[in-house]
C-alpha cells in the first residue's frame, strides 16, 4: 500500500490506552488498531462526549501492530475529557482518517518540515516517510518547553532536527533562509505563522520553494458535508463560491491557494 495515499475512512469505538507525559504538560495517548492507517497530514474525529462537536486530531505516531497515538497539547485540547474517559475504561468513538494529505516531494527536491508552537503532530508520519525516502530537515520553533516536547519521537533515520527558540516564527524564518527554489517545504503552525510563510513565498520574483501548509480550522462534520469549515480562497474560480472546506479540500493546502490571516 502507498503510505501517501488517503484510505477510505472508517468508524471505530476504541479505548484509550497508555499515556506518556512530556515537558510542558504535553501528553501522548495510545489507541489500539481499528482505523485505516492515515496518510501524512490527515486527521481523525474523536468524540469525547464533552461537546456537541467531536475533536479533530492528527494521528501522531503509528504503532507496531496498527495502533496509533494522539498528541495532546495542554492548551486548547480536551485533555481532561480524554483522561476521564480513560480512567473510566470507556471507549471513545473515532472516525477517519479524513482530509487531503501532504503530497510526496517532487523527485530530487530537498525536503524541509516546519513546526511552530508545538504543532508537530501533523508532521511525524510525514517526516518519517521523507527520512526514509532521502532525508529531511525538521525545524521546530517556539518559546515554551511544551513547544519542544516529544521531539525524541522524531529521532528517525534520515531526519535532522533543528530547534529554534525565540519569539516570532523562528522555524519559519530558518526554513525560508535555507530552502532553495527547487525544494519543498511542509509546515504545521498557527495561522499567523503560515501567513508569514505564504507571504514570503508569494513575493514577486520569488520562484520557489513549493510549500504545503497544514491549517487548524474549527470543524463540525469533518467529512465535507456541513460547510462549517470555510477557508477563503485567494482566487476563487466563481466569486459566488469564495470558500474551500478545510476538512475536505484541506486541511493541507498548497501555498498561495487560500487567503491567510
Amino acid at each position, binding site marked *: 500500500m502507498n503510505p501517501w495515499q488517503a484510505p477510505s475512512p472508517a*468508524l471505530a469505538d476504541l479505548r484509550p490506552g497508555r499515556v506518556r507525559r512530556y515537558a510542558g504538560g504535553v501528553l501522548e495517548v495510545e489507541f489500539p488498531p481499528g482505523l485505516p492507517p492515515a496518510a501524512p497530514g490527515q486527521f481523525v474525529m474523536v468524540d469525547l462526549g464533552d461537546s456537541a462537536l467531536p475533536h479533530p486530531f492528527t494521528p501522531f505516531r503509528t504503532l507496531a501492530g496498527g495502533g496509533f497515538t494522539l498528541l495532546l497539547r495542554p492548551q486548547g485540547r480536551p485533555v481532561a475529557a480524554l483522561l476521564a474517559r480513560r480512567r473510566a475504561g470507556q471507549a471513545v468513538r473515532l472516525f477517519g482518517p479524513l482530509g487531503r494529505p501532504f503530497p510526496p516531494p517532487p523527485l530530487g527536491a530537498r525536503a524541509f518540515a516546519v513546526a511552530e508552537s508545538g504543532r508537530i503532530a501533523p508532521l511525524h508520519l510525514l517526516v518519517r516517510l521523507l527520512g526514509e525516502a532521502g532525508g529531511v530537515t525538521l525545524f521546530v520553533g517556539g518559546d515554551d518547553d511544551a513547544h519542544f516536547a516529544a521531539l525524541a519521537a522524531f529521532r528517525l533515520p534520515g531526519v535532522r532536527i533543528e530547534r529554534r527558540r525565540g519569539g516570532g516564527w523562528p522555524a519559519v524564518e530558518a526554513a525560508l533562509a535555507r530552502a532553495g527554489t527547487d525544494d519543498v517545504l511542509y509546515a504545521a503552525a498557527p495561522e499567523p505563522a503560515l501567513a508569514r510563510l505564504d507571504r514570503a513565498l508569494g513575493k514577486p520574483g520569488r520562484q520557489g520553494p513549493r510549500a504545503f501548509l497544514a491549517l487548524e480550522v474549527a470543524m463540525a462534520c469533518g467529512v465535507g458535508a*456541513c460547510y462549517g469549515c470555510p477557508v477563503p480562497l485567494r482566487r476563487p474560480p466563481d466569486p*459566488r463560491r469564495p470558500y474551500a472546506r478545510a476538512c475536505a479540500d484541506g486541511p493541507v493546502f498548497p501555498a498561495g491557494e487560500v487567503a491567510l490571516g
Partner: protein
Amino acid sequence: MSAAAVDLGRGLRLANPVLLASGPFGYGGRYLELFDPARLGAVVLKGTSPVPWPGNPPPRVAAVDGGLLNAVGLENPGVEAVLAGPARSLAERGCTVVLNVVGHDEDDFVAVARRADLSPHVAALEVNVSCPNVPDGLRYGTDPRAVAGLVAAVRRVTRLPLWVKLPPAPPDRRALARAVADAGADALSLVNTLPALALDRTGRPRLGAGAGGLSGAALRPVALLAVRECADAVDLPIIGMGGVETAEHARAFFAAGARAVAVGTALFRNPLAAVEILAALEADPDPQPPPRR
C-alpha cells in the same frame, strides 16, 4: 409508533420515519462512506437558492453548553447544480430526496420550486421560512399572512409535496401553522434552529456572522413544545427535529405528535446516529410504556 412506513401527505410514503435534517448531512460528503442514507426515510438537502450563495464568513460553528451554534448562511451552489449533482446522485443511490428551498423573496422561492418540479430526483420540497442566519431568513416565518402568501405562490408552481419548515418560537405558533395549512402545505417541519449568541472571553462573537442558530440537545424541549402545539392546531403530518440523538428522543417526538423525525446535529458526534436510531426503533417498535403510578 413503530419504525414502519409513514404517509406524509399528497401520496408521499416514506419507508420509515427517520430522516436526515437539512444542513448537517449536506450532500453527504464522506458520510456516504460511513453509512448508507438510502436506508433512511428521506434525505433533506441543504438550503437551495436559485443562484449560488456564498454563505457566511468563518467561523461558522461553535459548540456551546448543551448544543451547537451555527451560522453557515446557506452556502450552496444554486438549484441547477444541486439538481444535476447531489440530488441526482443521491436519488440514484436509492435515497428519497427532499429539497430545502430558500430565497430572499417570493420570486426566489418560486424559481427554485418551479425548477425542482421538473426534476425526476426530488420527492418533496421543504420551504425554509425559518433560517436565522441570513438577513431575510425569518421574514416569512413569523407572520401568518406573509407565510400564507409565500406558500400559496409556491403551491401554484409545483405538484410536489410541500413541507413548510417553521422557526422554534414564533410569536403566534398556532396562527402560523393554520395559515400554512390553509395555504396548501402538505406537512410541517418543526423546528429550525433558535437564534442565539456565543461570545469569547474578550466579549467578541465566536461566529463570523455574529449571532447564529442553536441546535442539539438544548433545542429538544423547545422543539417538543412546537410539535405538540402544532399537532393540536392543525391536521398536517409533522416532521419533528431538534436534538434527536437516540431512539428514546425519537419516541418523545412521536408522543408529542410527530409522524417522523429528522436527525441533524447528532451526526457530528456520531455519524451513525440516524441509522442507529432507526435500528433501535425497528428492534423495539412499541416498547411498553412505564406503568402509571
